[in-house]
C-alpha cells in the first residue's frame, strides 16, 4: 500500500514541477510526513506534516538524508543519518519494508515511525533523487508495548507454568513460575533446549504425541510427570492450544498447573479414609446440631446401622438410650465452645435395641477459617472391659473374705487394688498401697529373676512361687504367691492378679521338720547300730545254750531256747531293714544318674542264693539310665524281685520279668511275676511300714521291704503301685522321672 503511494510520488518528483503541481496542495495537506532529496541526499522538499512530526524546520539543500533530528533503532542505539533507510536506498540498496525506528525531536520528545524510502531514477536508470514517507506509529507502538507488558505481567504473575513449545519440542518460552517448577535457575538457559528432556520417562512419548497434535491445530489437556533439573518429580496438568508463531509455524501454547500437592492430598485423603474404615473403633462425624455426617465400617459393626441408615439421622434419636438423652445437649454445648470430650464412658443403644458400654472421645472439627462446624466422635466398645472390671470387683469382694492378700496390678506393676487381707498382712492401708510399684513397696525377694517370672507369666498366663516380702513393720514374711494375668481380646495385658498366702509359719515348720527328720535319721542309724550289739549276744548265747546245754535241760526249756533264738534272728532282720529304710533318704535326688541295668545286676547278685534255690528265671528289657541314685534303684529291684521269689507259687517255676517304657516325662517300670498274687483288698496296705500279709511261719519277712521301695520312690516324686490277680501273679509298677 505504502509502496503504491511512493510510486505515485516518485512519478510526481520525477515530473520535476512539484512547486506548481496540483499535487503540491495535496502533498502539503497530507497528514503524512513527506520529503524529497537529490541524489546526494540533500533535502529538496518537505511538507508541513514533516515539520510537525520532526519538531524542526529542516534546512533545504543542507540537511541530508532525513528531516528528523536524531534516529534510533528500536533497541535504543543511535542510527547515524547516513545509515538511515533513505541513505541506504539512495545508495541503490533494497530497503526492507516495515522497518520501525524511533526519532528524537530537538525538544527531547520521541516518536515511532516507519520510513518508506523510494528512489527516483532518470531514463538511464541513474538515481537522481529520493522521496521518503515517514509514517508515525507511536500510538500503535505504545499500545503494542502496553499490550506486551500486560501480557508479560499476566504471564509472569500467574502461578501457573506458561510455555510455548515448537513442534520438535524446543522450548520457545517459559515464564518464571514455570522455570521455578522445573527447578531451573536463571543461569540454566532452559529456553531453546528440548522440553522432552524434563518429561518423566514413562510420560515422554505421550507428551511428544500431545505436542505434535497441538502443533497441528488441536486443543487438549494432559496430565504428566516432570522430573525437574534438580531431580524433583512433580505431577503436572496442562491445558494447551495451538498458537500461530511469528515465523508462520504453529506452536504449542500451554498453561500447566502443578497438581503434585492435590494428588498427594487425594492419596492422603484416601489413606485417611482407609484408616478410618479399618479402625476397630467406631468413627462418626456429626454436625453441631447432632446430625450424623459420616459413619465408618466399625460404626456399622458396633451399632448395627449401615452408613446409609445412619447418615442424616441425629445421634440422639439413633443411638442414645432414653434415660441418657440429657447427655447429648451437654456434649453439643461443650463442642460449640470448642471443648473436647475425652474418654467419656457411657451406654449406647444398638439397632437391635441391646445396650453397649462405650468410651467416647469427641473433638470439635473446624473449617479452614477456624470455625467449629461439627464434631468427630470415636466410640470404643468397652463391654468386655466393663465386664472384667465388674468381675474383678466381685472377685476382690469375695477375696476380701479370704485370708489371702490380694493385689491387683497393672502391666507396669502399679498397684490398682489392695484387699483387706493385704492391709492386715503387710500393714499398709489400701490408700498407701495404691499407685505404688508392688515389688518396691514390699521389697520383694524373688526365687528367680523377675524377668524370668514375667516370661513365664506372659507365656502361661500364670505363675506361682514363694516370695519374701517386707511388711510395714519391717519384718520379712514368706508368701506363696500366685499370679494370674488378665488380657483383653487383643491379648494385651490389662492387669495382673496377685494372691499371696502367708506361709511364714509353714516355712518355719518345714525347716523344723527337715531338721527333725535329719536328727531322726541320725538317731535311727545310731539306734539300729547299737541295737545290734546286745542282740548279737542274745543270739550267740541262746545258740550256746542250745548246743552245749541242750542235753541237760528238758523239752520245754529247749523249746524256749528256740523261741529266743528265732526272736533274736527276726529282730536282727528288722534292724537291718530299718537301717535300710532310714538310709533311703540319704542321697539327694537329682545329684546322680544310674544305669538301671547295673542296678538290676547288683540286686540279682545279692539275691543269688534265693534265685538258685528257687530256680527262678529272671528276664529284663534293656533298661535306661535315669537320674536316681544307683543304690536306691538296686534296693527297689532287690525288694521287688526278692518278694517275687519269696511269694512264688509252689506249683510252678518262678518267673520274673522287668519291663520298662517311656511315658511322658517318666520311666514306667513293671516287675511282673507268676507268684501267689495279692488280694486286691490289701494292695494299698502292703506299702506300709511293718505291713505283712503272712505270718513269719509261712513267709519270713519284716514288712519293711515295700515300705523301703515306697520311701525311695517318693523321694524322687515317683509312684509305686501293684496290680495282681491272686493265684496268678503280681505286677509291681513304679515310675520315676526320666
Amino acid at each position: 500500500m505504502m509502496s503504491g503511494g511512493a510510486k505515485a510520488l516518485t512519478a510526481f518528483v520525477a515530473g520535476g514541477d512539484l512547486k506548481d503541481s496540483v499535487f503540491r496542495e495535496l502533498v502539503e495537506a497530507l497528514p503524512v510526513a513527506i520529503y524529497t532529496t537529490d541524489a546526494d541526499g540533500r533535502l529538496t522538499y518537505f511538507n508541513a506534516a514533516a515539520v510537525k512530526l520532526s519538531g524542526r524546520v529542516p534546512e533545504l539543500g543542507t540537511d541530508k538524508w532525513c528531516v528528523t533530528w536524531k534516529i534510533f533503532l528500536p533497541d535504543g542505539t543511535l542510527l547515524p543519518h547516513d545509515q538511515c533507510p533513505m541513505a541506504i536506498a539512495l545508495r541503490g540498496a533494497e530497503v526492507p519494508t516495515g522497518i520501525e525506528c524511533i526519532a528524537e525531536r530537538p525538544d527531547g520528545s520521541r516518536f515511532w515511525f516507519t520510513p518508506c524510502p523510494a528512489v527516483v531514477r532518470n531514463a538511464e536508470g541513474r538515481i537522481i533523487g529520493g522521496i521518503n514517507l515517514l509514517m508515525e506509529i507511536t500510538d500503535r507502538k505504545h499500545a503494542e508495548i502496553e499490550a506486551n507488558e500486560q501480557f508479560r505481567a499476566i504471564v509472569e504473575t500467574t502461578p501457573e507454568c506458561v510455555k510455548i513449545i515448537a513442534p520438535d519440542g524446543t522450548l520457545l518460552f517459559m515464564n518464571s513460575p514455570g522455570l521455578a517448577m522445573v527447578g531451573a535457575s536463571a543461569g540454566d538457559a532452559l529456553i531453546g533446549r528440548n522440553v522432552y528432556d524434563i518429561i518423566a520417562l514413562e510420560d515422554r512419548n505421550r507428551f511428544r504425541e500431545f505436542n505434535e497434535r497441538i502443533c497441528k491445530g488441536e486443543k487438549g489437556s494432559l496430565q504428566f510427570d516432570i522430573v525437574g533439573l534438580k531431580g524433583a518429580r512433580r505431577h503436572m496438568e496442562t491445558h494447551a492450544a495451538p498458537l500461530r508463531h511469528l515465523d508462520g509455524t504453529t506452536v504449542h501454547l500451554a498453561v500447566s498447573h502443578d497438581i503434585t500437592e492435590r494428588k498427594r492430598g487425594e492419596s492422603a485423603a484416601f489413606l485417611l479414609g482407609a484408616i478410618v474404615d479399618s479402625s476397630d473403633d467406631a468413627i462418626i462425624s456429626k454436625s453441631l446440631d447432632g446430625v450424623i455426617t459420616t459413619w465408618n465400617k466399625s460404626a456399622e459393626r458396633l451399632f448395627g446401622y449401615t452408613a446409609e441408615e445412619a447418615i442424616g439421622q441425629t445421634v440422639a434419636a439413633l443411638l442414645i438410650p432414653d434415660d441418657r438423652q440429657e447427655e447429648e445437649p451437654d456434649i453439643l454445648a461443650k463442642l460449640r465452645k470448642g471443648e473436647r470430650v475425652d474418654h467419656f464412658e457411657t451406654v449406647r443403644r444398638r439397632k437391635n435395641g441391646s445396650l453397649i458400654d462405650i468410651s467416647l472421645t469427641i473433638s470439635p472439627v473446624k473449617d479452614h477459617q477456624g470455625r467449629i462446624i461439627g464434631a468427630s466422635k470415636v466410640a470404643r466398645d468397652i463391654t468386655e472391659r466393663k465386664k472384667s472390671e465388674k468381675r474383678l470387683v466381685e472377685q476382690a469382694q469375695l477375696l476380701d473374705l479370704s485370708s489371702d492378700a490380694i493385689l491387683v496390678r497393672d502391666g507396669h506393676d502399679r498397684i490398682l487394688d489392695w484387699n483387706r487381707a493385704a492391709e492386715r498382712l503387710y500393714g499398709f492401708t489400701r490408700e498407701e498401697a495404691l499407685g505404688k510399684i508392688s515389688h518396691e513397696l514390699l521389697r520383694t525377694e524373688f526365687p528367680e529373676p523377675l524377668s524370668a517370672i514375667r516370661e513365664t507369666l506372659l507365656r502361661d498366663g500364670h505363675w506361682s512361687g514363694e516370695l519374701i516380702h517386707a511388711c510395714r513393720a519391717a519384718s520379712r514374711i514368706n508368701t506363696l504367691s500366685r499370679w494370674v494375668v488378665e488380657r483383653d481380646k487383643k491379648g494385651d495385658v490389662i492387669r495382673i492378679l496377685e494372691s499371696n498366702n502367708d506361709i511364714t509359719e509353714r516355712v518355719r515348720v518345714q525347716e523344723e521338720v527337715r531338721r527333725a527328720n535329719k536328727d531322726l535319721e541320725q538317731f535311727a542309724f545310731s539306734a539300729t547300730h547299737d541295737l545290734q550289739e546286745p542282740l548279737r549276744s542274745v543270739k550267740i548265747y541262746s545258740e550256746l545254750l542250745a548246743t552245749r546245754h541242750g542235753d541237760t535241760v528238758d523239752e520245754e526249756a529247749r523249746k524256749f531256747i528256740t523261741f529266743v533264738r528265732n526272736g533274736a534272728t527276726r529282730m536282727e532282720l528288722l534292724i537291718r531293714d530299718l537301717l535300710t529304710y532310714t538310709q533311703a533318704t540319704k542321697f539327694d535326688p537329682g545329684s546322680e544318674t544310674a544305669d538301671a541295668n547295673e542296678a538290676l545286676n547288683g540286686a540279682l547278685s545279692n539275691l543269688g542264693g534265693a534265685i538258685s534255690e528257687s530256680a527262678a528265671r529272671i528276664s529284663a528289657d534293656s533298661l535306661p539310665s535315669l537320674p536316681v541314685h544307683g543304690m536306691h534303684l538296686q534296693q527297689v529291684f532287690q525288694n521287688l524281685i526278692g518278694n517275687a521269689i519269696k511269694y512264688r507259687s509252689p506249683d510252678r517255676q518262678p518267673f520274673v520279668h522287668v519291663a520298662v517304657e517311656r511315658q511322658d516325662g517318666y520311666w514306667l517300670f513293671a516287675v511282673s511275676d507268676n507268684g501267689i498274687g495279692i488280694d486286691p483288698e490289701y494292695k494299698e496296705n502292703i506299702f506300709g511300714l511293718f505291713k505283712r500279709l503272712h505270718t513269719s511261719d509261712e513267709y519270713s519277712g519284716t514288712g519293711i521291704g515295700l515300705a523301703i521301695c515306697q520311701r525311695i520312690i517318693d523321694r524322687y516324686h515317683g509312684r509305686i503301685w501293684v496290680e495282681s490277680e491272686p493265684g496268678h501273679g503280681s505286677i509291681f509298677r513304679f515310675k520315676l522321672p526320666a
Partner: protein
Amino acid sequence: MKEPNPDLENLGTMMAAGTKPFEILLAEDSLGDVELVRLALKEHGVECMLRVFRDGGEVITFLRSLDADPKGPALDLLVVDMNLPKSSGEDILKCLRSTENYAQTPVIVMSGVIAGATDEKTTRHAAMVYFQKPSTLDGFMQLGSIVRNVLKKQTRGAA
C-alpha cells in the same frame, strides 16, 4: 568242732617243752564278748595269759607302765574292741605304736556287727588283723583260729 590242725600239735609241743604261755591283752567292755573270746581261744587250744581290761583308760595306763619297766613281761598280742569306754580302740593303738618296746606287737581289732566308719581308722593304723564280731557262734569261734595264726607267725619270727 574243728578238724585237728597240725599247728595245734606244734603249739602243744612247744608248750610241753616248757615255753612260757603267750601274754594276750584283751580290751573289751562286754562281759559276754570277753567270755566268747575265752571260749574261742579255748576252742582252738590257745594257751595264754589273758589280761582283760574293760575300759580304754586302764589299757593305756597299763601299756605305759609296762613300757616303763625294763623287766616288764612280754606282750604277744593285743585284742582290742574299737568301741571302749574312756579311751577308744584307736587311742589304744596310737599309744601302743608310741611305746619303745611294744610298738611291733601284733593287734587284732574287733568291732560290732555294722562297722562302717571304723574300717578306715583301723587300716590307717595298720592293725594286723581286723575282726568283725559275727552274730553266730561258729563265726565268733573263728577268732581263736585267727589268734593262733597270728601267734604262730610271731613265734616263727622270734625263732
